[in-house]
């Protein structure tokens, strides 16, 4: 397999344990050694419930984890012109600023908080364009200043808005965020994320705040951008169905660990981890109503980072838990014998040789 565009290796994110500002010196691991790769042009889904660490993982890739948090591990981004991959976690801040936006774009869940209410969207997109001069052919070159730069950035902003299929784009440039609908704001965010001409897009729950109909439009747009721009996407979502429709490969996160990862058809055809199986079973299926009140249920609630069960974090909820599951963490990865499907991983004692 070719070298991946992004390789997250053994990522660990910890926060100090403590209440009321009193630190006890202990640290709580929210992400506990997660590994994940994204190939060029590939769409990888990262599925998890709240508290599983999926959003933190995205922030860690951009080195935006807020201060008391500590990040360990490696985040390798393939270099420009096939130079050696750089570990983003070891990069100086100035170099990191060249990565954010220009090589990795991000779309957040809540479009209202990600936009500045005091500026027009045209200004905000143009600002993102101007922050990455030289990324656009025929756009703002590094030498352009003042009016010329503003003019070029403005033209580019319009082009980007049209790229994300904003209806009536030219007129919308002068609108403020509050004048737009949720779906339109999300398109603006996407336009801003594309301004730096990134190779990888981190999309953190990009459709969660949207209605199903707008969600479908947004997913179709993401798919189109992927094809046209060769964009790689790391799609973070709590919705397995969204991942099923959009992604090539899906990783399932539970309690800060990737518990299963497989090609999308494989994962949904034959989920291997009991958590994945339970998630799929409990999902109401359109067109296949269960008998009244008889939806399959996954008992319990997701494990809190500060109070993780011993052994496998899922074992208290697992219908197939064995003695060893409570005692020992399952091994890091155990490739399954799945002919023709590379890279299927599962973290579960059911699929690992039990140590004697």
């Amino acid at each position, binding site marked *: 397999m070719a070298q991946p565009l992004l390789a997250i290796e053994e990522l660990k994110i910890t926060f100090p344990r403590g209440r009321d500002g009193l630190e006890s010196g202990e640290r709580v691991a929210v992400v506990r050694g997660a590994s994940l790769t994204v190939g060029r042009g590939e769409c990888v889904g990262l599925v998890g*419930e709240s508290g599983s660490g999926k959003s933190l993982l995205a922030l860690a890739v951009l080195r935006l984890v807020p201060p008391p948090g500590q990040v360990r591990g490696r985040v390798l981004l393939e270099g420009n012109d096939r130079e050696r991959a750089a570990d983003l976690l070891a990069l100086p801040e100035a170099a990191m600023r060249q990565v954010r936006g220009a090589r990795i774009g991000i779309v957040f869940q809540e479009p209202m908080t990600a936009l500045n209410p005091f500026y027009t969207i045209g200004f905000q997109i143009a600002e993102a364009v101007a922050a990455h001069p030289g990324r656009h052919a025929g756009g703002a070159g590094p030498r352009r200043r003042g009016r010329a730069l503003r003019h070029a950035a403005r033209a580019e902003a319009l082009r980007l808005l049209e790229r994300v299929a904003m209806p009536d784009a030219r007129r919308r440039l002068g609108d403020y965020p509050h004048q737009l609908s949720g779906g339109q704001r999300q398109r603006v965010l996407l336009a801003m994320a594309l301004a730096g001409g990134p190779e990888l897009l981190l999309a953190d729950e990009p459709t969660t705040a949207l209605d199903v109909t*707008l969600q479908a439009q947004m997913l179709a747009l993401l*798919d189109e951008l992927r094809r046209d721009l060769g964009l790689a996407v790391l799609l973070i979502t*709590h919705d397995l169905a969204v991942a099923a429709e959009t992604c090539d490969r899906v990783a399932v996160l539970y309690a800060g660990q990737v518990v299963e990862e497989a090609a999308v058809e494989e994962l949904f055809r034959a989920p291997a981890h009991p958590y994945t199986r339970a998630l*799929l079973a409990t999902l109401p299926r359109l067109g296949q*109503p269960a008998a009244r009140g008889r939806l399959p249920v996954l008992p319990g609630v997701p494990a809190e980072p500060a109070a993780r069960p011993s052994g496998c974090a899922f074992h208290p909820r697992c219908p197939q838990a064995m003695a060893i599951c409570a005692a020992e963490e399952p091994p890091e990865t155990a490739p399954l014998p799945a002919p023709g499907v590379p890279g299927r991983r599962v973290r579960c004692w059911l699929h690992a040789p039990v140590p004697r």
Partner: protein
Amino acid sequence: MNGPREGVPAPAAAVAAEVLLAAEGLEKRYPLRRSPFGRGPASLAALAGVDLEVRRGECLAVVGESGSGKTTLARCLLRLIEPTAGRVRFAGEDLLALPAAELRRRRRRFQMIYQDPYDSLDPRQRIGAALAEPLLLHRLENGVPGGLGNRRRAARRRALGLLATVGLPASAADSFPHQLSGGQRQRVGIARALAVEPDLLVADEPVSALDVSVRSQILNLLADLQQRMGLTVMLIAHDLAAVEQLADRVAVFYLGRIVELAPRAELFARPLHPYTVGLLAAVPVAWPLAGAAGARARHRVQAPLAGEPPSPAAPPPGCPFHPRCPVARARCAVERPELLAAPAGAEAAPAAGAGRSERLVACFFPGSLPRSEASPAP
């Protein structure tokens, strides 16, 4: 009104199709600030004339995009806000004509469950006290004689019983809301609504704020309670898969109006309004998608519904859906279709097992948009 019900066992509902709650021509308008030249509409219609009946014992679902007026409807029906026009009858009584004190007494009979269990509980009140409060307010401590102390103790006993009803341990009574998970909080919200033994439960997006692995627990609980207690439920939701699990009948909202109303099985098997068709096709699916159907679903060429709902401040002329409708014709742009019984022709393929249909649809050409391949059959 006495139309036979299809397949699903809904015991309480099967007794009689008595109408518990009825809305007639319900409207809610909000004034708009007009320009100094007096152009443009003076008000915005969040609800533009809704006729709806909720029958005792049934679960009626209201679906639609955000801004379609679902929540406004619920609030008007329970008179949490005052509708601008129209009538609301609860168990035969005109709710809008009741004086405030009477209305407050009546509130015991209709309760609401809110979307966000994080916002709907007092953070400084223990769960036990939160559950006892409505009992004390409505003086429902089972006619216990004596002072407030006795009544409090009786209310607490009832509160513990309620916790058991919704599947929470008795120890939860001494917890504060922040000590509970989202799913547990939603159970508390349900218990609190049930405390006063209402006839009608209005659930506004009861599972949207919950973790995926917890949603089915709450959906099952609601279905279970409805059966056991003979509750009437009005479910407001945008998640069509959840609606399909619970509802007996479904009302589809668009721009403050009902555009389709049908028994659940018929609506999901054969939606008649083009908007319903689009809504169903937009739902992502997560079961194994093999072969061509899978590839097609995974790589949608086009979203099933283009555009966004128009602003209720400037509704389009004619059928409000016509600008987004893939099968709109000239007539749709000038004339607004009424919500009428679906014509026989459109009923060519009724759902198996369905008796006489009782479907309403507001479309000149119902059934003209077939369910596309965009929603693959499993």
